[in-house]
């Protein structure tokens, strides 16, 4: 929309502002951009087949501009439609580029007109349908059905909706079951960190990291592994914080830790 000058939208008067706002607020009443376009098309007061898509595109873009000027958030659908209509408008206005492989503006416009016509047709069909004589309102079924007698038989009823709900219940349960690990044998880093923080203040001497393991965590190999890993990770965290030092004499030798004296504190 560069070359053709769209009137600049600067609503000044209160009345103009209100009018613009009314239009925008109405967006809530529309079911998407196509519905809004259809409504705008009605103001052209012509057969939908003879509608000017170009005029409609302009009208829609003006509308979106107004909404923007009023800083009203439009749903993404409306903006996508605006971008597309801007594109369509340029296609309709510019002479076709022979190099361009894309569809002709006329084809696109025709399709939009078709969409509008089809939506309108469905609206009318819906109205016709609902205007019919309906069961339970204009037409009535037998008031005292007699389909009953003698032998009792239990018939189980279930609708497809019941079935789907049952299935989705199971599936949802699976998807959203909170992930809970078997925590009996897991010593978390948070736990280890808390434990070390409490103890590090007293560790002025190099002490083997192993000796920091919590009680009762060294007999079961699984628990021992978890506690060792957590304690080691926690010790690294303390080093990072500048509160401890680690050393190891050689490969696979025991790791030792001691408090780090803070020079600045």
């Amino acid at each position: 929309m560069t070359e053709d000058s769209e009137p600049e939208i600067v609503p000044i008067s209160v009345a103009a502002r209100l009018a613009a706002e009314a239009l925008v607020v109405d967006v809530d009443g529309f079911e998407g951009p196509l519905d809004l376009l259809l409504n705008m098309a009605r103001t052209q007061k012509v057969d939908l087949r003879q509608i000017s898509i170009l005029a409609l595109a302009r009208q829609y873009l003006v509308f979106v501009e107004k909404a923007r000027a009023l800083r009203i958030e439009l749903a993404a659908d409306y903006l996508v439609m605006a971008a597309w209509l801007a594109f369509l408008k340029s296609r309709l206005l510019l002479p076709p580029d022979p190099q361009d492989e894309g569809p002709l503006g006329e084809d696109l416009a025709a399709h939009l007109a078709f969409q509008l016509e089809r939506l309108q047709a469905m609206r009318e069909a819906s109205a016709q349908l609902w205007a019919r004589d309906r069961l339970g309102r204009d037409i009535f079924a037998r008031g005292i059905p007699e389909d009953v007698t003698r032998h009792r038989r239990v018939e189980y009823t279930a609708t497809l909706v019941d079935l789907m709900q049952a299935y989705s219940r199971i599936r949802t349960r699976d998807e959203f079951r909170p992930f809970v690990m078997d925590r009996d044998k897991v010593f978390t880093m948070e736990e280890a960190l808390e434990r070390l923080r409490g103890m590090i203040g007293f560790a002025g001497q190099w002490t083997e990291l192993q000796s920091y393991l919590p009680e009762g965590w060294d007999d079961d190999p699984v628990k021992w592994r978890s506690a060792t890993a957590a304690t080691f990770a926690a010790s690294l965290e303390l080093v990072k914080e500048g509160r401890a030092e680690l050393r190891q004499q050689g490969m696979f030798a025991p790791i030792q830790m001691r408090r780090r004296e803070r020079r600045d504190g």
Partner: protein
Amino acid sequence: MAERDDTGPRESLFAAPSMGEQERMVEAVLFASAEPVTVAELAARMPHGCDPAEALAHLRKRYEGRGVRLVRVGDAWAMRTAPDLGFLMSRETVEHRKLSRAAMETLAIIAYHQPVTRAEIEEIRGVSVSRGTVDLLLELEWVRFGRRRMTPGRPVTFVVTEAFLDHFGLESARDLPGLAELRAAGLLEARALPTGAPAREDEDAEESPDTGQSELFED
């Protein structure tokens, strides 16, 4: 039409409808009413100037010997099928009962996962499946035995039947909606939506079923 005696013009604004017309009215009211209807009630419903008692008499005559009769019940009137045709109506009484939740879930799993073994059903449901549940589904003929699984123990599998498809209005088991479609139909809660619900979806939120989140974690 020829049988009705159209003595008065139907479209007259003030005159009472013709007796033929009145007969039609009584016929429709008695047919649709859930209770026997008294003459007074008929008079109250019908346009001013009608004579429901006379219309009833005509109507009763019309139905003489037919498959349906006009009968008096206390001081009210009702339509009933002719007694000699009772045998046509003597199909079993049908008592409608909802399937239990366990049965419904088991059925759903069989439908979606068929052929499926009992162990697999239990794994998916997370609880054991009682014999009665499967028996009921077999009895309803919604489920039947499929091929045995070629695994140790050669367990039987379950599959759904034609009767199942019939009952649920499906053309084939493959037409069962998938998870994405269940979501689209609003049968899964919003939190299950992978892409984030579009903003406009709440417009008729009141129509969506309340699945009750609490239910999801019940067992």
